[in-house]
C-alpha cells in the first residue's frame, strides 16, 4: 500500500457476472412438460407431479438440456468433464416447489472457458469460471404491488423446471459498458447455437459482483493482483434482466461506491436489488447474510457420463468466424458483414440469396432493404424465412431490370411484407414493369415543355431544378423509370 489513503486515489471498477439463461429445449429439465408458454395460458397448467415437486415425484434428466449445455461449453472453449452430476441447493422460497433447487456444484458441465468481446475496437477475452445446469423456479405474482406492499402473493409453477444455464465469469470486466457488450455477445453466440431465445420473457437474468480498486493497481493488460481483489469489499447486484439494465445498474453502483469511498465510508459487503423503474440499487435486508445452502449430492439423478459428447455434438459456425468469412468470401464491408451475421437466421438467409445472385446485390437487398423494412415493422427475419424464394424472385426481377430498384423497394417489398403477396402479383396489380425507352423519352419531353421556369433555373445553375424535373418524369411514368436514366436523359436534352 502506498501512503495515500483509498479516498485520495483514482478508482477502477472490477466486475464479474453470473448470467442465467433459459435453454431452448422441447421439455423441462427433469420432466416431460413443455418449456413453451402458450398464449394466455392459465397459471399452474403446464405442470406435472415432478415440476410441482409433489411428494414422491422424481426428476429424470432431460439429456437434451445437457446437449445444449455441451454446445455452450464448446462455444465457450470450456472443459467438459468425464462425468457430470447434480446437487441440491437448499433454501426456502415460495417459488421453489421443493424448497431446494437441483443444480450443479462440484461437477459442473463446463469449466474454464473464454469468450472474446470487442470493446472500443479492442478484442478482450473474458474468462468463464464455470457454467452449470439447474432448474428454474416458478414465478411469484405479488397481488397489489411489490413484495413489500402486496396483500398476498400467488405462485405460478408453469416456469418451474425450465432448464437454466448459469454462466459465471471471472471478475474481468473493468466498466459497466463492457458487461453490456459481453451480454450482447453471449446472447448472439447462444442464439447461433440454437439453444436460446432472447425474445422469451425472462430468458436472461443477471447477477453482478462489483467492487472498486485503486486504478493504479490495475496492470496494463487489465489484470489485478488477487490480494487487491480480495481486500476490496464487493456488492452483489441482483434482478438485472437486460444488457442495458446491466450497464445502468452497474454505472449506478460505480457512482455509489465511488462516492462512499470518497467520503471515507467503507462499501458494505451486501446484496443489492436493481430497481429498474427507479434506476437505483437498493440494499436487500441482510437476511441473506449467511448463505448456507447445505449443498449435497442429488441421489435421484445418477451421474451422467459425458466424455466424448464434446466431440460428438456438432455446433454451427459461430458469429465471429462467420463474419470474417463473409468479408473474405463475399467481399463485404465491415458494416454489412456485421448486419448480415447479427443472427444465425439472417446469415443463413443472406447466404441462400448470395448463392443465387451477386453477393453485393444480395447484401444490399438483405442488409439494407429487407432488414430495414422488417425492423420498421417490428418483424424478424424468422417471420419471412419461409418466403425466401419470393424474396429471391424480387431480387431477380431487379437484377434483370424487370423492375426499378425504387419500385421494388418502396412498393413491392412493402406489399410483400404488409399484405403477404408475392412479387409477381404485386407487379401485375400495380403495373410496375420497367418503363420502356419510348415512354421515358415522351415523359422527358413533356416535363421540359411543361416547366419552362425549371429549365431556366437549370441553365442559371440552380441545382434543385434538375431534381424537380426528374421528379416530374418519375411521376409521369408511375415510378417505373430508372431515376439514373431519367437524370442522364434530361441532362442530354437540356444541354443540347
Amino acid at each position, binding site marked *: 500500500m502506498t501512503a495515500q489513503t483509498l479516498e485520495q486515489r483514482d478508482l477502477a471498477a472490477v466486475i464479474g457476472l453470473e448470467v442465467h439463461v433459459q435453454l431452448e429445449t422441447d421439455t423441462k429439465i427433469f420432466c416431460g412438460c413443455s418449456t413453451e408458454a402458450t398464449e394466455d395460458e392459465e397459471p399452474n397448467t403446464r405442470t406435472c*407431479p415432478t415440476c410441482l*415437486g*409433489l*411428494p*414422491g*415425484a*422424481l*426428476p*429424470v*434428466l432431460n439429456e437434451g438440456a445437457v446437449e445444449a449445455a455441451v454446445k455452450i461449453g464448446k462455444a465457450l472453449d470450456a472443459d467438459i468433464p468425464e462425468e457430470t452430476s447434480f446437487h*441440491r441447493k*437448499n433454501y*426456502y422460497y*415460495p417459488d421453489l*416447489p*421443493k*424448497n*431446494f433447487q437441483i443444480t450443479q456444484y462440484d461437477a459442473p458441465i463446463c469449466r474454464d472457458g473464454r469468450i472474446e468481446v470487442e470493446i472500443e475496437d479492442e478484442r478482450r477475452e473474458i474468462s468463464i469460471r464455470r457454467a452449470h445446469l439447474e432448474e428454474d423456479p416458478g414465478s411469484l405474482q405479488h397481488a397489489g404491488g411489490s413484495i413489500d406492499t402486496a396483500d398476498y402473493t400467488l*405462485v405460478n409453477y408453469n416456469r418451474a423446471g425450465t432448464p437454466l444455464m448459469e454462466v459465471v465469469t471471472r471478475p474481468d470486466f473493468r466498466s459497466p459498458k463492457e458487461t453490456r457488450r459481453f451480454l450482447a455477445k453471449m446472447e448472439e453466440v447462444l442464439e447461433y447455437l440454437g439453444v436460446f431465445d432472447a425474445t422469451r420473457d425472462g430468458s436472461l437474468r443477471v447477477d453482478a459482483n462489483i467492487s472498486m480498486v485503486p486504478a493504479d493497481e490495475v496492470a496494463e493488460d487489465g489484470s489485478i493482483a488477487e490480494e487487491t481483489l480480495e481486500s476490496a469489499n464487493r456488492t452483489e447486484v441482483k434482478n438485472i434482466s437486460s444488457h442495458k439494465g446491466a450497464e445502468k445498474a452497474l454505472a449506478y453502483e460505480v457512482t455509489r461506491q465511488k462516492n462512499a469511498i470518497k467520503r471515507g465510508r467503507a462499501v458494505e459487503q451486501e446484496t443489492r436489488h436493481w430497481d429498474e423503474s427507479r434506476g437505483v440499487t437498493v440494499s436487500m435486508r441482510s*437476511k441473506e447474510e449467511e448463505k*448456507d445452502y*447445505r449443498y*449435497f*449430492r442429488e*441421489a*435421484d*439423478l*445418477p451421474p451422467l457420463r459425458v466424455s466424448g459428447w464434446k466431440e460428438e455434438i456438432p455446433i454451427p459456425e459461430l458469429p465471429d468466424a462467420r463474419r470474417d468469412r463473409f468479408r473474405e468470401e463475399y467481399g463485404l464491408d465491415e458494416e454489412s458483414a456485421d448486419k448480415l451475421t447479427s443472427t444465425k437466421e439472417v446469415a443463413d438467409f443472406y447466404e441462400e440469396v448470395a448463392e443465387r445472385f451477386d453477393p453485393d446485390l444480395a447484401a444490399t437487398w438483405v442488409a439494407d432493404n429487407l432488414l430495414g423494412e422488417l425492423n420498421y415493422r417490428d418483424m424478424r427475419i424468422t417471420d419471412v424465412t419461409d418466403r425466401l424464394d419470393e424474396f429471391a424472385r424480387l431480387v431477380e426481377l431487379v437484377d434483370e431490370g424487370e423492375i426499378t430498384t425504387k419500385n421494388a423497394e418502396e412498393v413491392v417489398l412493402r406489399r410483400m411484407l404488409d399484405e403477404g403477396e408475392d412479387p409477381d402479383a404485386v407487379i401485375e396489380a400495380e403495373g410496375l414493369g420497367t418503363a420502356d425507352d419510348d415512354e421515358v423519352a415522351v415523359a422527358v419531353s413533356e416535363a421540359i415543355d411543361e416547366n419552362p421556369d425549371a429549365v431556366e433555373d437549370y441553365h442559371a445553375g440552380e441545382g434543385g431544378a434538375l431534381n424537380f424535373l426528374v421528379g416530374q418524369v418519375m411521376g409521369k411514368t408511375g415510378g417505373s423509370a430508372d431515376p439514373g436514366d431519367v437524370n442522364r436523359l434530361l441532362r442530354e436534352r437540356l444541354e443540347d
Partner: protein
Amino acid sequence: MADADLNVFVTEERIEGEDDGPLAGKTVAVKDNLSTEGVRTTCGSAMLDDYVPPYDATVVRRLKGAGATIVGKANMDEFGMGGTTETSAYGPTRNPVDPERVPGGSSGGSAAAVAAGEADLALGTDTGGSVRNPAAFCGVVGIKPTYGLVSRYGLVAYANSLEQVGPLAPTVEGAAALLDAVAGPDERDGTTRDPTEAVDDYPDGSYADAADGDVDGTTIGVVSDLVEGADEAVVGAFEDAIADLESQGAEVVDVSLESVEHAVQAYYVIAMSEASSNLARYDGVRYGKSGGYEGNWNDAFARAREEGFGPEVKRRILLGTYALSAGYHDKYYKKAQDARAWVKQDFDEALSEADVLATPTMPVLPPKVGDSLDDPLSLYLMDANTVPVNLANLPAISVPAGEAEGLPVGLQLVGPKFGEHDIVRVASAVEN
C-alpha cells in the same frame, strides 16, 4: 382383540386392479407413503392429512396391472421415521401376535395387515429396515430389494439414497411373487436398473420360482459382529435356524464386518440429512395448515411446520440440517459418506467368502407399546442389523425363524447386488 383395534390402516379403501394377472384375486395393503391417485396418502403425518395425490406410484400402477386389489393404506411411523409405528399421527398400530406390543416399523401397518389376515400381501418401504423390522416382529416375510430394482416413483421420500419399496407376505414364495410384480426398471426413476444388464450371469426365472428350498452347497456367512449384540433369546432361535440350514446341506462360515459398528451413526447422519431436504417442501403453502400467519413468510413456514410435524420428524430434520451445515458438513455428512463406502466394501469382501450372509433381523424381541418412545437412542440402536444393508444398497430378506418367549424371531439373509434369487432360495429353506 378385534382387528379394528390393531389400527392397521390410516385409510381403508378398495382400489380394484385389472381383472386378470398374476396377482388376480389377491388383496394387498399398501403403505401410506406410496402415492395412490385419488386416495389420500398421509405418510402417517398430520402435515399430509388431506393430501390426495393426482397420480399413482409406479408400484401401485404395477399392482393394479397385475390384478391385485388394494384394500387400504397401511399405517406407518410418520414419514417412515421410527421402528415401532408409534410416531404415526394416526395412533400406534398394534402387533397381531400380541396387541400389547408394537408391530415394528416403520411399515408396521403393512406387516400387521398380513399377520392379521387383513390383506394377503402388503407393500412396505425400507430405508433402514422398515420392511424387515416389522416382518420380524409380526412373524411374516419381508424383502428389502437391491437399491434400483424397484421404482421409487411415487414413494414419498424420507431418505432417497437408501430406500426401496419391498413386499411383505406370510410366505417367502408369496413375497417373491409380489416382488416379481413390482420389480423392474422405470423410466420415471433414473436410479432403477435392469438387473439382467447390471450384473453378469443374472439367473433366469422368477423370484417366486427361486423359492425352491434348495440350499445344498450354498455357503452362508454368519456375521458374528451382528449376532453378538443381540438378546440371548433371539440368538438362540437364530442359531437353531442356522443349524437347520446346515442340516439341509448348507455350508456355514463365520464372517466379520468390522465397519458395521459405525453403520448406525453413518445411517442416521445420511438419512436425517436427506430427510431435512426431502421434507422441506412441507411449508404450509401447499401442504398442512397454512394461512392466517402474519408477517415474514419464513415465520409462516416455521409455524406450519411446527404444527404439522411430530416430534421425531422435527428431531430428524433439525439434526439433518445441522449435519449438512457449513462447518459441520465435513465432520458429519462427509464422514458418514466415507463410512458408507467402507460398509459397502466390507460387504463385498464378506460376500466373496459366502453366497449369502445371515444375521438376526432384530437384535431384540418386539417391545411393548409405549416402552421405547422416550428413548430415541435405544430405538436407533435397534436398527443395528438392518441399516448396514441399506448403506450397501444390497438385497435382504427377513424370514420367520421360530419363536422366543412366545414372540416371533426373524432371520435376515443378505445377498449380493441383485442377488434376490439367492436370498429367496435360502429363506425358503428356513421355512422348511
